[in-house]
């Protein structure tokens, strides 16, 4: 917690409210075309094309899940190999110790388990969750972001951000309302 830069609450950004998902995509695209980069859009349900409209890159989740699956599979097999061949070999009438076909079931299960659990954790980490406090929650109308309203927020950290100019820009998008998002301290929220 560092001291505030100026008197009064700091600004996190400006937020515009819309009431239609497709309008939000169009307006977000317009904001991107106008040169804004540091922004985010909020909706109660996933909207196709919204992330692309604000220039968001492809999610890392699939690559992480793939790596986790491979690691889980190899790890699961090596565990069984180590247990059955090295740590606790059981000689039954001279049959081979590395009975790999019998190990496939557990190898499959550890592949899935690792992919699912690490995939979930990667989603949480990439989304910076859990995050109990976030400045956008300071906007009273934001409660509707999980109901039937759609929000576009341009952040103060954007180089092009200017309190009056950006406000005029957002008001030009014909929103239902434009709100200033206050921030209690100058921690950097994404």
């Amino acid at each position: 917690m560092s001291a505030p830069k100026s008197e009064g609450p700091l600004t996190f950004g400006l937020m515009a409210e819309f009431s239609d998902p497709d309008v939000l995509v169009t307006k977000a695209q317009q904001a991107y075309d106008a040169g804004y980069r540091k922004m985010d859009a909020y909706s109660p349900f996933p909207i196709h094309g919204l992330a692309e409209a604000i220039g968001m890159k492809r999610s890392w989740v699939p690559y992480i899940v793939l790596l986790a699956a491979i690691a889980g599979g190899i790890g699961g097999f090596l565990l069984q190999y180590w247990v059955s061949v090295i740590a606790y070999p059981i000689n039954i009438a001279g049959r081979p110790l590395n009975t790999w076909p019998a190990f496939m079931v557990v190898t499959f299960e550890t592949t899935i388990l690792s992919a699912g659990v690490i995939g979930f954790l990667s989603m949480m980490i990439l989304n910076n969750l859990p995050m109990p406090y976030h400045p956008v929650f300071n906007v009273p109308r934001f409660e509707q972001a999980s109901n039937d309203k759609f929000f576009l927020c341009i952040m103060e950290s954007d180089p092009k951000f200017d309190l009056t100019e950006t406000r005029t820009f957002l008001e030009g998008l014909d929103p239902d309302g434009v709100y200033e998002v206050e921030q209690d301290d100058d921690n950097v929220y994404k």
Partner: protein
Amino acid sequence: MQVGQTDKTSVVEFPVVEPGHTYRSIGEKISNVVLNIHTPLGWVFAFGTGSILLMMYLISVAYLFAYGVGVWGINIPVGWGFAIVTFVWWIGIGHAGTLISAILFLLRQDWRTSINRFAEAMTLFAVVCAGLYPILHLGRPWLFYWLLPYPNTFGLWPQFRSALAWDVFAVSTYGTISAVFWFTGLIPDLAGMRDRAKHPMLKFIFGGLAMGWRGSARHWNNHQKLYLLLAAIATPLVVSVHTVVSFDFAIGQLPGWHTTVFPPYFVAGAVFSGFAMVVTLLIPIRKIYHLEDMITLRHFDVMGKVILTTGLIVAYGYITEAFIGWYGGSQYELFLIKNRFVGPYAPYVFGLIFCNLVAPQLLWFKPLRTNLTVMFILSLVINTGMWLERFMIVIISLTADFLPSSWALFVATPWDWSLLIGSIGLFLVLLFLFVRTLPMISVFEMQELLHKQEHGH
């Protein structure tokens, strides 16, 4: 915002969502089930019944722990009694949840949206009921962790060539992935509950569970990728679980167990009983909470078709078993088939044939598929039949194997029955607690469905 109009060109007669819903009305209707202070009488009745049965379960478990597995009817040669029969039955019931949430998601079946959350919860609780059975059956259940590979002072490790070790991994992975999948879908709805709740305490609890979900484009971007991938990995998983359970039998050499048709036939049977259980539960819950506009007759029509299809696959499994018993020429297999039909447990086998083969044929007819009384009774009949099927496979096979000198009958004791009926109580209590405390229909997916229906993409 009119949605769900009947499409003249399609064969679909009933909409997935009744017309007249908006994003807001969907969210409010679903969260009101939880946020409404008034608890419907139907819920109290179901939860109360469940609690009574749960008490019976707890008493049975306490008695079992005090006196050991000898309180059951198991002995040599039938060492796998009701515990394994019911374990397989519950695991099978769980399958519908993952099938609905994962496979039907990949196949883009819109109708899954209003029942997937509920079915996934049902899966989780069925896996809980199932998973407890082998542990109770261990004899020394407090040492259940010996099943897992961990470094210990005995220097012992599990035998990875054993189907029972595979089972541990299959069931625990299934339980974990089902929970992850369910919770991943739940996070955005928990945020919705946080925002709709009025009471500060509820806001705090739901806010904590939602972990700060804001529904931002970045959140959705990662969330939707994960959801798709979880569906993709849960699809082979759901097929594998009952396959591995069937290996417990198929790997053995006992007549009636040693059969290659087991994996597909077990999976089909699992889906068959799972969908029947979804029907059993959804009919009263839909009525109690007036969800007729979200869980429509379309759902029951489609589920009826799934039950019929998987029922026919199960029937094919029975016929194959009987045919191979005769065609294989092994006297032990042939005796087993005869023993099923004219032996001491013949009433069970004929009951099973009626429940699983004859009764589901009613589902060929659409008026019966959309008649909820018929569907409800039929779903109970089917699940009874599936329990009898597992009884036939596990117990009849064990009573009479290769050597007549080692034959013996299995007679269930009252403790066998009380644990079986009690486990239904455990299931009901968990399920109705879920219905009362968490959104049982996925709000964000219903809103997304509405958006798609309005815009045709």
